[in-house]
């Protein structure tokens, strides 16, 4: 979706402001927000793709005026509501008052090291062979889907070259919406800056995205 999250190439946000000796967290609640997001995700009822879509579905004004852990917290509330693990009146009162729905799993403290060390690999087996080879010229499709996509606006309808192949990976555009993992071949596609930004762009700059095969069409050379 063309939400506030799709920031590449937007203007007006001012300079990057790296913080000297930045602390890992800026408030105690940020730690809890991080841990709650991971522990609730470990219940196994939504994917990372659905999580990302919940974050980018915040109103653009809300998204852009929230810190990153605020975005995570608001999206976590939305996911818990959607999947029936909390009720609106509970969020309003701050008290559990509705009988719990039991999740598939509850992450126990003893399982945390193994769960984090395993992560969530997205590579999958897929029959057949990828359509494109390294060095092939491709063009990204021009789409404006209502739902989740990982094809950023600045790289839609652009001509690039396959730089890396990564095997088949879970397809977020499907998986974010309960459509299944639908593994698709994944590539790194490199674009010259001038292709993305026009003839005034730096001739010594190139940008790549990671793109699933269904984002790509063959480009005549």
């Amino acid at each position, binding site marked *: 979706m063309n939400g506030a*999250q*799709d920031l590449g190439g937007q203007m007006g946000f001012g*300079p990057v402001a790296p913080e000297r000796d*930045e602390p890992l967290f800026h408030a105690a609640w940020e730690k809890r927000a991080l841990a709650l997001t991971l522990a609730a995700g470990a219940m196994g009822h939504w994917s990372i793709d659905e999580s990302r879509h919940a974050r980018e579905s915040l109103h653009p004004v809300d998204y852009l005026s929230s810190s990153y852990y605020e975005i995570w917290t608001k999206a976590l509330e939305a996911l818990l509501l959607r999947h029936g693990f909390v009720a609106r009146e509970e969020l309003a009162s701050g008290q559990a008052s509705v009988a719990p729905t039991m999740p598939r799993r509850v992450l126990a403290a003893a399982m945390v090291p193994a769960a984090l060390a395993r992560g969530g690999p997205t590579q999958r087996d897929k029959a057949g062979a990828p359509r494109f080879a390294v060095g092939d010229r491709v063009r990204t499709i021009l789409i404006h889907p209502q739902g989740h996509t990982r094809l950023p606006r600045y790289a839609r309808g652009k001509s690039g070259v396959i730089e890396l192949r990564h095997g088949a990976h879970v397809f977020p555009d499907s998986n974010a919406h309960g459509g299944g993992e639908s593994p698709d071949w994944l590539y790194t596609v490199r674009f010259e800056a001038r292709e993305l930004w026009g003839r005034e762009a730096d001739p010594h700059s190139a940008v790549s995205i990671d793109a699933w095969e269904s984002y790509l069409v063959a480009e005549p050379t």
Partner: protein
Amino acid sequence: MEARVKALETILVDKGLVDPAALDAIIDTYETKIGPRNGARVVAKAWADPAYAARLKADATAAIAELGFTGRQGEHMVAVFNDAETHHLVVCTLCSCYPWSVLGLPPVWYKSAPYRSRAVLDPRGVLAEFGLVLDPAVQVRIWDSTAEIRYLVIPQRPAGTEGWSEEALADLVTRDAMIGTGVALVPDSLRAGVALP
């Protein structure tokens, strides 16, 4: 937000959906176990051991796992090597994808709109804000992390560090050098042109 997050935790714990000790264990992992020192060890080993550098180039996930760094937000790794012609820079324009297994949690600026919007459009301007001005002939190569592949920049090894131990080399590798918004540190002794003991 303090009260809102506290309320959410109370509800989820009372309903038996999360284990508060698991929350503590997650926080402890990222506060004390996983951080940019992991990545610095990878870089230092790549500098010191050409065979390791070759494995890192061929299959970064496996080469990084040799050092025990695996898992969440590092499941599929690619290492990109800076050299005299090319400077690599990593961003996630769509969210905050970042190689947690080797760098830990991302800094606020990495997740911020100024960085995410301009790293792809005006990379040299962004680098200048970090005090890094590249020769215009050096290619700037930006990696937008739009899938689950996570990128680790291997900065150039500072001249004059031949024969240094991996431990000493790792001290030269900053987090920003592994994102591409910085370069490896040059030790004062080398900067001043003083011969090393």
